[in-house]
């Protein structure tokens, strides 16, 4: 798509686009290139000399058992966050889509957690689930549940999943609601006339017609679980106990912070870049499909 009516000027457009290009080159491309370059280098312990080692940093990563563990932790965490937040928000959106009284009020009350920072969401939940003073933790203890996220990896995972899901419901809810409202009512009425009950209408008509929205949200939720939950994890568990809640992004953050292994940290960054490229490609492929549709 191109505009036909345009202005002709030689220098003005260059001046207009220069700020963005400059910032992009300095803060995006240069660091990204640095990360790739650094991932091929090994520095000695004192930072005095560096050696070009090709893929040794990558090999080292994949021979370490706990990098694999970080991978599986990330997959499990992303799956739980995406699955739970999508299911809950779809359930809520379907109810809010029914023309009941006060649907607008429900919408307002459900969407605002989008504005809460992930780190703050983590703090809110840890206040209730803290084993020594949290009110939910206390109720669980009196119900006989042994809850200790400070020592038990599974409990810690539950903790970060709850806070991450809580924060993401509002986003998914909004998109599901928009998707549901875009489905022509006549199709659903036709099915009702043919005698399909509400459960059947949902699974054979509404859910399939909603699939572009669902697919888009699956990708967005995976990206969210991978990248945006860093604040949740850092405020709640710092990746612990014993790295049970350490995701790929949290690990790059934590490893590089110690500053010991720049090459290894850079190699992890490059792997993450490939993951982002893959996810973005999937997202755009889907958008193309939607345009045709």
């Amino acid at each position, binding site marked *: 798509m191109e*505009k036909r*009516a*345009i*202005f*002709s*000027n*030689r220098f*003005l*457009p*260059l001046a*207009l*686009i220069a*700020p*963005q*290009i400059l*910032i*992009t*080159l300095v803060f*995006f491309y240069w*660091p*990204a290139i*640095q*990360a790739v370059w650094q991932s091929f280098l090994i520095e000695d312990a004192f930072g005095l000399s560096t050696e070009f080692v090709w893929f040794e940093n990558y090999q080292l990563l994949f021979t370490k058992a706990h990098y694999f563990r970080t991978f599986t932790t990330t997959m499990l965490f992303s799956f739980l966050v995406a699955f739970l937040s999508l299911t*809950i928000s779809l*359930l809520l959106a379907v*109810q809010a889509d*029914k023309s*009941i009284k006060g649907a607008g009020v*429900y919408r*307002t009350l459900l*969407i605002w957690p*989008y*504005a809460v*920072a*992930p*780190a*703050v969401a983590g703090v*809110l939940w*840890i*206040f*209730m689930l*803290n084993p020594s*003073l949290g009110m939910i933790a206390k109720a669980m203890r009196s119900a006989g549940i042994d809850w200790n996220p400070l020592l038990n990896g599974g409990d810690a995972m539950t903790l970060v999943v709850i806070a991450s899901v809580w924060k993401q*419901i509002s986003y998914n809810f*909004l*998109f599901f609601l928009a998707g549901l409202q875009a489905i022509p009512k006549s199709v659903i*009425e036709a099915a*009702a006339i043919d005698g399909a009950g509400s459960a059947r209408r949902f699974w054979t008509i509404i859910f399939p017609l909603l699939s572009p929205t669902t697919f888009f949200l699956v990708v967005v939720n995976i990206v969210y679980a991978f*990248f945006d939950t*860093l*604040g949740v994890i*850092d405020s709640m568990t710092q990746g612990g106990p014993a790295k049970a809640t350490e995701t790929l992004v949290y690990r*790059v*953050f934590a490893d*590089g912070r110690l500053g010991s292994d720049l090459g290894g940290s*850079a190699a992890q*960054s*490059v792997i993450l870049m490939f993951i*982002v490229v893959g996810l*973005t490609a999937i997202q755009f492929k889907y958008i193309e499909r939607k345009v045709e549709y």
Partner: protein
Amino acid sequence: MIERSHLGNVLAHLILIIGVVIICFPVYVAVIGSTHDATTIANGNMPLVPGGHFLENYYRILFEGTKSTTREPVATMLLNSLIMAMMIAVGKIAISLLSAYAIVYFRFRFRMVAFWVIFITLMLPVEVRIYPTYKVIADLHMLDTYTGLTLPLIASATATLLFRQFFMTVPDELVEASKIDGAGPVKFFFDTLLPLSRTTMAALFVILFIYGWNQYLWPILITTRDDMQTIVIGIKKMLAVVDALTEWQLVMATAVLAMLPPVVVVVAMQNLFIKGLTETEK
């Protein structure tokens, strides 16, 4: 017509009410927690009704800070967060407007190259280039400055793509009419295009303000001085390593203050927020 059962409606209300309770409960507990004193919370028997320490807690946290952890008063952090969020939102809108204008309304050498250079940044979120970007900022002596805090975040493809998309829908006749009236590109931009873009800009502002306010990773790396901290970073630092040292009533007051501005923005400008969210994600 679809059958309407009374039972179905009751069920819908019930599910939505449960959802709202789950969504709102943590914030309710935080508000309650911010009105009690430290001992009531520490012994684990905090009631679900407000206590009498509301003014005391908020005054202390806003102007004095906590005792044992980060001692910076939260008023400073709020100001830092506000400056960061405003600079990111306004900066992003400004540079994206200009670059989208150049790409849509002009033909110049390397136009498509420039477009792709901007577009590909979608695939380079700050999380994957954390430390090299940090090094660039350090080399430019921008640590602990508002510039260092915001500049690397104001270039992004989303806003540019959004404005480009919007400009494509602006009728060509407007350009031709302006040209006949003898207006140049600068006059057209300010007199015609900017007023037309007002809603898009406002919707984008809502989303970007929240994005800026809630930044975590970048400020935690770039700020080392306590007086440069944002509130989202400050609250994390208030959680002391030793549980008993955490002053929870103050942490909760800070959490409430940290949520308030972005939540007010979302609720007050709900329609712009929804428009911004659905359009930037396309």
